[in-house]
């Protein structure tokens, strides 16, 4: 994987490399919880000047919190995608522009999309109390 391979603004792959940092998770990690953690971070970091980010990041966090607590709905995944699409590129700050990659909602939704099948509310594993990545379904 190189910067160039993901350099199309994330249109083909739905993701991007950002500033080059990686978080590696093994298959026992809860994707939703990590995503929620990201969403909470971006909600907290929002400066509040322009409306899409001020209102949208908090909304995404609440939706993810719902999923995390087992109250999610199938439509939440589409909702997260739609909120992301409506924040993306419509804000003041350049960090919200895809090539810079420090883009809060994109990093949130690219996780839910690549693992959309296993992050649905019905797939909660009771043993570990976590959303499991199931390689067979996520391929």
């Amino acid at each position, binding site marked *: 994987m190189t910067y160039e391979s993901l350099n199309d603004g994330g249109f083909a792959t739905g993701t991007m490399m950002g500033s080059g940092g990686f978080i590696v998770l093994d298959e026992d990690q809860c994707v939703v919880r990590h995503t929620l953690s990201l969403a909470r971070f971006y*909600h*907290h970091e929002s400066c*509040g000047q322009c*409306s899409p980010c*001020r209102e949208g990041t908090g909304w995404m966090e609440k939706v993810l919190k719902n999923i995390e607590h087992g109250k999610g709905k199938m439509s939440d995944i589409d909702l997260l995608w739609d909120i992301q*699409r409506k*924040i993306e590129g419509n804000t003041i700050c350049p960090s919200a522009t895809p090539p810079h990659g420090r883009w809060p909602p994109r990093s949130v939704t690219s996780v839910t999309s690549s693992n959309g099948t296993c992050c649905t509310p019905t797939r909660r594993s009771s043993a570990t109390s976590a959303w499991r990545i199931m390689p067979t379904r996520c391929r």
Partner: protein
Amino acid sequence: MAEEKKLFKVKIDNITVEVEPGTTILNAARNIGGEVVPPAMCYYSKLQGSGGKCRTCLVKVTKGSEADPRPMPKLVASCRTTVMDGMEVANITSPEVLEARKGVVEFLLINHPLDCPVCDQAGECDLQDLSYEHGVSGTRYEFKRRTFEKEDIGEHIKLHMTRCILCYRCVFTADQLTEKRQHGILKRGDASEISTYMRASLDHTNFIGNVIDVCPVGALTDRTARFKNRVWFLKPVDAHRECSDPKCCGKVALWLRGDEIFRVTARKDKYGEVEGFICDTCRFEKKDIKDWVVEGPRKISRHSVITAGHYVGVHKPQETVVKVMDGRQPKLLMDIHTVSEVNLPQVDLSQIEGPAHSTDFPKNKGVQ
């Protein structure tokens, strides 16, 4: 010899307009007028530095300029982007823009209480118009909305922070019209709020009342007029007076019912912006019709709810029928009483006791 000023040619939604260099896309669109004007919630042409916050005026620049025809990579805020020569802009012709605007309206509304039925701004609210024109009817937000305590900031102004959309207009107003600003945005993110730190009162200056006029929603309202009447029951008239304050333009709109003044505001144009700022003495203290020189009824867009019940432009015919017919009396082709028993001239309904009955109208009377 002074060089002739070159005008920039801009195409907005395929309508070409020539504007001076340095004009923003929004103002170029306002030069055209009509539907191509993007809505603006935070931009205010009379306030320096306003705009860029609400993102409702996003447009797509399909061609950067004549020299560099590449399109801009993302949607731009038309109120803060200046035009280039040969620029091509898509506003209502771009589905992408309409979709983004729909999203922005949704974002603005998710934490708005939607208490229009009890809100004083209802009927002249920019957010109401915006969501009606550009929003969707439902909401997908199912969480608790952000709320704040109502606050009296000063003797005349009520702050209802829950309704605020954080456009920053009132902050710029206080900065640019008054000597010292005493309120601003506290905190950040979705916790940010307009407030006077330590609950100070905003009565220190004679121009702070203008924050009520610039507020696009019902977050800042006039305490002397709150809950007195709905705007559509009042009749706006233009009036003026000699104001001793040199900064005050003295030209106002009075909101009347009969001869009683319910509210005094500055005159707002079709974009919801005041034509001239007025002082607090005019706004809050001159509530007697004798203080003012009334110029005449104010013209309100017929699409506004304020025009409900005001028949503007009704022309009564000057001539009577007799005059039109050169002095001849109109001739009736048929007298209704020759064929109908109802409402005979000799039967006075008000003289009949109780409800009128068929026996009150003699059978076959009048029918030959």
